[in-house]
């Protein structure tokens, strides 16, 4: 009765289409119905409910894991339509972890053995989607039988399932592999070959080495097959195999070239090109031919082909840059293509072409182009410039002044979102390259001065770097007072607290520097006349000192009550210092009298701090933290749960230490780390330096910092390398690009280089984050081992067969015996396969009794054979396959 009033799937679809807004209400109503209907005992009602649920699951993404058991019930119905609904539900919703999955094992076996082709297909499909270890192990024998089926569609699918079996249950290799290899030779039925090659392509992509012995079979297909799909897959296999065996590469290069020039199918041609470029790149003539075909792709109207052509160029670029250079006009023109893929690919190629000699021109054009692109692509361009230029510790940069001003220019681009990367590079360069510091400070100052930039959150990281640089290298600033003003301008309230803390610290450094040079010069007027030039250039007069102190009172004063710990602490440091220095200084600002004595005291205090700040900081190795020996008695992994109880609510007080530790090995956070270090050293009386002492103790973790001596000379007469705004002129991109295209990418401007490349400090190690070269292989190992066993085992078995042939004839049981043999090879794993196949062999051979003794002997011999193969496998090292010669008929 239920089914009379049940809504069909069509009703649901119609209903969904008529819902304008309340779709989810409708869905939940249907779900409610489904929950009720699915419990019905009527097979039709149940399967319709399940069908509706499956539909909702795949279209509206509702959960259907709760219906797993009902789906299993459906596949057990005799009616094919119901069964099909159940199978669809299972393959759409089951995962390996579905708890009831093992319950379908028996039903699957039944359907796999069915006489009805479509039922077998359903079961195979299901297994290929959801098979887990247990299912694959249980059903391997059935699949093995089906692999020899006379019905092509079934056989094809059985072969397809093998991939899943191997992946989940590697021991299946010992059962099925031989038949799989045999199927390679069934040239009479193309669908089978196509399926097998597909399987081998997947297998070889994971562990190519193991399949090297099959190269002759693959080669035969490469030469004989006319099916483009099969050829593409064979080429994929050879792409993996060729690098392992040079003789193989030599052998296949000719047929592939021939295929490439003859075929009319673009897909096959592209695959040929890709194979040659990735795996046969040493064969110069083949690469030339491939390059010719790439040119054809590049001028095609179809954007897909143009894109793939560029993609192919990107593959060849690392080894044969000439192929890219030949097409450089096209590549650069493609930067302005409307197609995003083509744009990206050509950008990648342009970056490949960058070298020491042309980096300046290319970057200038690209930055110009970025300003005119849409935000997304603009950032892609900026990102690739940044990563290319910083590659291998700024390998290709000769003129750092130029690069630093380029960074400044980039940060001013409207859509720039690369703040973090630019910040890291600015600081990194500042620490590594001494000679560029004046220019860095100039760029930083320009950024800090511009109040408009403070409103752009993407720039905050860059501003933080600029502030840190200007504070750290304040001696290069022409006008420190002006710097102080920009560091303390009211709009800094727009900055996030972490950046603001950096601003404050830099202001502190700048203040100390101003006072120091003021006092030095004042002192100089009396005695030594050393600092006079400096004082004039720095515009520090008694008035400006007063102005500074007032400025600090006004701007920093309110911050001493800030809620942010970093800001509060730093603000108080500054205020505390000014409080201390004011009385002594204010006297000295007034003319004459006791002036001299006071001044000495003031300068003592200032010098103390100045010395602290002027210590050189070098880059820290990434692995430095690891090299610090853990002191005795320090338990790093101690449970800190009771800490809270001890400290109570006063935890925030320790936050400075926390940030100190946190930023220890993160280069990006060095600024905070550094200022923390200084702050900590400040309160102690012998401040001249904990830092210096620390460095003396742990000297090995730092670079040998070359003491800079000539900074002051370099300071003011350093010519700006590049006019900041000169690049951003009116010329349109087309012109720019054309200009760039005209410029050869070959080194030709070398003669123009006037300046030598400055010293870039490098660490021996730890400059680059260690790239984990670990490849997850756990599973494949067992698979490839099994494949290896079988492939070599086969050979050994074949040998023994030949040897035996002389003595006695092999009877019809050979095949079964072979299977037995393979089973017994797997020895360690007792699986049902063995028993069942034995049973079947007994059933089939009625004359078992007659040959009983015979078979026993054979068995024993096989055992021997097994022994031999085992030895053969175990004695040589694990890479047997690589040493197994590829048979001579091929090479």
């Amino acid at each position, binding site marked *: 009765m239920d089914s009379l009033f049940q809504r069909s799937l*069509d009703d649901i679809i119609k209903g969904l289409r008529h819902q304008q807004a309340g779709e989810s209400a409708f869905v939940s109503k249907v779900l409610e119905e489904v929950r009720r209907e699915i419990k019905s005992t009527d097979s039709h009602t149940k399967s319709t409910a399940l069908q509706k649920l499956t539909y909702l699951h795949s279209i509206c993404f509702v959960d259907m894991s709760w219906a797993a058991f009902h789906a299993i019930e459906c596949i057990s119905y005799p009616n094919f339509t119901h069964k099909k609904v159940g199978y669809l539900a299972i393959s759409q919703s089951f995962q390996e972890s579905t708890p009831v999955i093992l319950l379908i094992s028996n039903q699957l076996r039944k359907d796999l053995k069915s006489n009805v082709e479509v039922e077998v297909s359903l079961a195979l499909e299901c297994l290929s989607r959801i098979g887990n270890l247990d299912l694959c192990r249980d059903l391997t024998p059935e699949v093995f039988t089906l692999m020899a089926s006379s019905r092509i569609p079934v056989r094809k*699918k059985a072969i397809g399932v093998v991939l899943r079996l191997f992946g989940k249950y590697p021991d299946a290799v010992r059962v099925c592999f031989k038949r799989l290899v045999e199927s390679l030779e069934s040239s009479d039925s193309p669908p089978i070959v196509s399926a097998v090659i597909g399987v081998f392509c*997947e297998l070889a*992509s994971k562990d190519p080495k193991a399949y090297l012995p099959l190269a002759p079979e693959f080669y035969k297909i490469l030469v004989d097959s006319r099916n483009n*799909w099969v050829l593409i897959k064979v080429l994929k296999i050879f792409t993996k195999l060729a690098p392992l065996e040079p003789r193989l590469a030599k052998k296949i290069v000719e047929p592939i070239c021939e295929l490439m020039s003859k075929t009319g199918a673009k897909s096959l041609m592209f695959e040929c090109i890709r194979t040659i470029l990735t795996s046969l790149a040493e064969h110069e003539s083949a690469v030339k031919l491939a390059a010719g075909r790439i040119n054809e792709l590049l001028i095609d109207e179809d*954007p897909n082909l143009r*894109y*793939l052509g560029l993609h192919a160029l990107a593959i060849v670029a690392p080894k044969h840059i000439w192929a890219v250079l030949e097409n450089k006009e096209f590549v650069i023109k493609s930067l302005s293509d409307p197609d995003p893929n083509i744009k990206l690919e050509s950008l990648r190629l342009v970056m490949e072409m960058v070298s020491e000699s042309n980096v300046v021109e290319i970057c200038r054009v690209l930055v110009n182009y970025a300003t005119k692109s849409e935000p997304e692509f603009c950032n892609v361009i900026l990102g690739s410039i940044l990563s290319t230029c910083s590659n291998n510790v700024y390998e290709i940069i000769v003129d750092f002044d130029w690069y630093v001003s380029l960074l400044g220019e980039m940060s001013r681009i409207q859509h720039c979102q690369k703040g973090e990367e630019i910040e890291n590079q600015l600081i990194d360069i500042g620490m590594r390259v001494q000679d560029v510091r004046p220019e860095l400070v100039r760029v930083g100052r320009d950024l800090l001065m511009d109040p408009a930039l403070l409103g752009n959150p993407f720039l905050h990281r860059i501003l933080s770097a600029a502030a840190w640089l200007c504070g750290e290298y304040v001696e290069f600033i022409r006008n420190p007072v002006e710097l102080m003003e920009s560091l303390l301008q009211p709009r800094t309230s727009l900055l996030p607290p972490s950046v603001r803390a950096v601003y404050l610290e830099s202001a502190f450094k700048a203040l100390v520097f101003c006072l120091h040079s003021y006092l030095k010069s004042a002192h100089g007027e009396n005695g030594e006349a050393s600092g006079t030039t400096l004082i004039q250039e720095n515009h520090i007069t008694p008035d400006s000192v007063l102005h500074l102190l007032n400025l600090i009172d006004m701007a920093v004063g309110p911050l001493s009550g800030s809620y942010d710990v970093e800001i509060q602490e730093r603000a108080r440091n500054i205020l505390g210092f000014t409080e201390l220095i004011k009385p002594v200084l204010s006297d000295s600002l007034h003319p004459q009298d006791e002036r001299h004595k006071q001044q000495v005291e003031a300068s003592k205090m200032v010098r103390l701090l100045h010395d602290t700040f002027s210590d050189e900081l070098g880059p820290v190795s990434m692995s430095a933290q690891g090299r610090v020996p853990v002191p005795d008695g320090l338990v790093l992994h101690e449970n800190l749960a009771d800490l809270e109880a001890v400290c109570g609510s006063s935890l925030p007080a320790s936050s400075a230490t926390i940030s100190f530790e946190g930023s220890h090995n993160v280069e990006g956070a060095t600024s905070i780390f550094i200022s923390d270090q200084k702050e900590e050293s400040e309160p102690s009386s012998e401040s001249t330096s904990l830092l210096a002492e620390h460095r003396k103790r742990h000297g090995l973790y730092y670079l040998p910092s070359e003491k800079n001596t000539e900074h002051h000379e370099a300071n003011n007469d350093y010519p700006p390398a590049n006019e900041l705004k000169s690049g951003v002129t009116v010329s349109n991109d087309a012109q720019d690009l054309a200009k760039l295209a005209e410029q050869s990418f070959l080194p030709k401007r070398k003669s123009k280089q006037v300046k030598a490349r400055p010293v870039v400090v490098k660490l021996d190690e730890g400059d680059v984050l260690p790239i984990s070269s670990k490849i997850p292989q756990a599973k494949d190992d067992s698979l490839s081992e099994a494949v290896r066993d079988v492939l070599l085992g086969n050979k050994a078995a074949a040998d023994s067969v030949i040897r035996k042939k002389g003595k006695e004839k092999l009877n019809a049981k050979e095949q079964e015996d072979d299977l037995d043999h393979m089973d017994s090879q797997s020895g360690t794993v007792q699986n049902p396969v063995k028993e069942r196949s034995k049973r079947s062999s007994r059933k089939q051979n009625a004359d078992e009794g007659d040959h009983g003794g015979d078979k026993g002997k054979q068995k024993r011999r096989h055992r021997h054979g097994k022994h031999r193969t085992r030895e053969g496998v175990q004695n040589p090292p694990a890479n047997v396959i690589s040493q197994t010669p590829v048979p001579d008929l091929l090479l």
Partner: protein
Amino acid sequence: MIKAVMVMNTQGKPRLTKFYEFLDFWCVVLCSRAENVSNFMEADSIFGPDSRLVYKHYATLYFVFVFDSSENELAMLDLIQVFVETLDKCFRNVCELDIVFNYSKLHTILDEIIFGGQVLETSSAEVMKARISLKLYRISYQNSFWLEE
């Protein structure tokens, strides 16, 4: 391997989804792409490393295949064509409505072409043959004639 097949209309409504590999999350990948641009997209960020995506636009529908480096990009485009051709033969001038209302038929056809992520059939004639044999079987078996698939 083919990792997923999706059909959706121009408004981003899914019409068919089939995953051959468990994918963490699904999102409507369609963005407004101009006509006459290449049909590929890098899909690593959505479908995991080594994933590529190819789509083809027919009238109101997008056909999307997600695949990895074991497949040829242009061959995948061809495969979409094979799929659509087969649908066309099956429904005579296929339109979005056919696809909306023939949910299980669509799966059956797709299963003939792609099997557990592998391409098993590339000729729409063969797929049609398989469908006919399925139909014949059903007619001979039919004991529940009121039930459409």
